[in-house]
């Protein structure tokens, strides 16, 4: 039993050291990128592109637009990198930036044209080996594309990304009650889509 406890403790310490090493390595990359090192910035991009792209994809429901948004996020991140003080993980700093880029782009596009679902094969973006497929035939990504933008953004952040209403309210500059109301609306519309 004692041996097991020691093994667990050793493993925990190893994980902690790994985390510290990762954070230290990321800090070095950020510092180098802040000094203009594009190679370091590319490493930061490679480490974060999938999460940023996934969030852009959920927010836009459009694979081609999500690619544009992802590029825009990293271009803006480069411009703003000087303001990053390294107090949090780089990905945490990038998160609200991604949300804001996705929302501002959506607002400007909404003025020009109605949002359409433009992914050739949306299902291909969702394939995740071993992931549960709760109800065959229901394409949530496609159903999300039909939601009003505000409701979709809150649904993505709350039910897909797991953010709290307080966090969402701060990021989207909303009252917490408005975030809850948008989520209620989104869930009700998606329930109806599931039943149709």
């Amino acid at each position, binding site marked *: 039993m004692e041996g097991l406890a020691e093994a667990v403790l050793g493993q925990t310490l190893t994980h902690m050291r790994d985390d510290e090493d990762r954070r230290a390595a990321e800090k070095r990359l950020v510092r180098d990128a802040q000094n203009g090192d594009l190679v370091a910035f590319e490493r930061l991009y490679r480490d974060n592109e999938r999460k940023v792209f996934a969030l852009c994809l959920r927010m836009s429901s459009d694979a081609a637009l999500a*690619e544009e948004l992802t590029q825009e996020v990293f271009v803006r991140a480069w411009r703003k990198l000087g303001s990053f003080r390294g107090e949090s993980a780089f990905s945490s700093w990038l998160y609200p930036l991604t949300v804001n880029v996705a929302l501002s782009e959506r607002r400007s596009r909404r003025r020009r044209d109605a949002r359409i679902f433009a992914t050739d094969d949306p299902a291909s973006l969702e394939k995740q080996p071993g992931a549960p497929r709760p109800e065959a035939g229901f394409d*949530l990504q496609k159903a999300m594309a039909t939601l009003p933008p505000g409701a979709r953004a809150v649904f993505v952040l709350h039910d897909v990304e797991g953010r709290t209403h307080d966090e969402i309210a701060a990021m989207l500059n909303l009252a917490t009650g408005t975030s809850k109301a948008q989520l209620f609306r989104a869930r009700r519309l998606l329930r109806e889509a599931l039943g149709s």
Partner: protein
Amino acid sequence: MTCQELDDRLDDWVDGALPAAAAAEVEAHLLSCTLCRERERRLRQVLAHAAALPRSVAPARDLWPDIARRVSRERSWSWAAGGWNPLALAAAATVVVGLGAVLWTGPSPSRVRTVQIPTPTPQARLVAGTVGISDPVLAAAARDYEAAANVLLETLQQRRARIQPEDLASVEANLDVIDRALAEVRQALVKSPENPELSRMLVSTHRKKIEVLSRVVKLSTAL
């Protein structure tokens, strides 16, 4: 409890956010109402689908080349407009900040009495700084660093009378070492243009040059 009241509380119910008494009411209503049970089932299905969505998705194509091009274009525009580009500004600013506490620590050959800081010839230096670099982004970065170095060299030239000859000699010696290192890295890049380590070395050596120059400029300001 009516079905409408249940509908209003369904979100909090599935999120586990209802107080015990309200939760008991919802539970009792669900036991007796088929329609509301179906509503609850659908909501849980939607949430199961949402939870199953991957939080990490690879784009279908590599987005970095476009990002690098845009960042590079912004830098070129900024420099062409006569201002500091973000890369050079960041490089210079970072090393200058906090230098008040840092003293020059390079070698000081006491026998050197007359030292010439190389007068920058901007165009020639910019061109020389990119020889052998085929990657346009890296070439743009090298150009930006050389441009930043030129500005610092010009400043240094104007203040050279304030600096001790020994220190000027140290600057010259350090710059000479750095310039030779840059030439070697550029030569290596001709042979291995895709080598990321060489790209990193080129950028870090340029940065070192800016750092050396910034230190002396800072010291000359304090004199």
